[in-house]
């Protein structure tokens, strides 16, 4: 539950901050790329322990 809250903040942060320095689209690219990486590295969730 808390992981979802953290991830929501993290993704919003990435999209917004990327827009400051690059085109807004790159923010979405980085966010989606992070999502892909997290799915591979932390499939159980951002903060959850692997059962």
């Amino acid at each position, binding site marked *: 539950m808390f992981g979802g809250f953290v991830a929501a903040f993290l993704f919003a942060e990435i999209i917004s901050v990327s827009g400051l320095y690059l*085109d807004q689209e*790159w923010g*979405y*690219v980085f966010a*989606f*790329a992070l999502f*892909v990486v997290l*799915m*591979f590295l932390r*499939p159980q969730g951002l903060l959850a322990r692997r059962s």
Partner: protein
Amino acid sequence: MNWPLCAIATVALVALPFVYHGAYPLHILVLILIWSFAYTSWSVMGRFGLVSLGHGGFMGIGAYVTALLWNYWHLTPWLGIPVAMLAAAVMALLIGYPCFRFRITGHYFALLTLALSAIALQVITATRDVTGGSLGYTPERWQGGSSLYALQFLGKETWYLIALGVWALGPLILWRVDRSMLSHALEAIAEDEDAAAAIGVNVTVEKLKITVLSATMTGLAGGIYCQYQMFISPDTVSGIAVTLQMERPYSAGFMFPLDQLSAPRSRSWRPSSCAFGSAPAPSAGTTLSTASCWSWSSSFCHRASSVR
């Protein structure tokens, strides 16, 4: 299969542009054939329960790589399209291998491939200095727009025959896959991955094979679409909208499998398992028939940007 009927249909399809010269109906037919092939490429892997939402990305790669290679290096589409297909295949490997290695399946696989589709769309839009961004991109005309070297033709008849040939590849590939060991392995995997692995099926490799095949076909569809339309934009060749456009005919085919009416097969079909479950496969005819029907509507949607 009724071979005489097939032969008559083939002759009629090939002879059509020589008998009927209406430019706009031929244009619609070309779009139907190209999109039907794209939809068939999705069903190549979708029929085994591998629900990919990343095919918009593969099609975008196919279209944009072909156009960029032509505009920047004047690489003929005869080589550019194979390079684009290779690029789509590499992308499928990059996303597919970790997915299958880590046993990411079902909804999670769909979500991951959805991310790929979104990334492709956003990268094309973001690199607007190179790709034209959301305004779209136009391959340069060569020698007045009619050249075999540049795969550019002014006549709809030529494009109709090319599109017909590409479209015919779809059922051929489905037929080959259906009669290969790959099909049996993937059906076993769709039923139960662990059981399939236990009897010696290399789950990762078999899934990768069909994913790469499907992505390569989609790349081809993208390249041909680009060459025909001579204009591509992120929204028409990539993104989730294009992916869903590819997926819907397959789902429709599942809900109403035409071949069950004409020639019942030994396989049963279960509408409830059409999307993410371990789904049995409809035949090539089913998929293509529904894809063609769907293409009519989608082609009309595309006509505003494509009539030359």
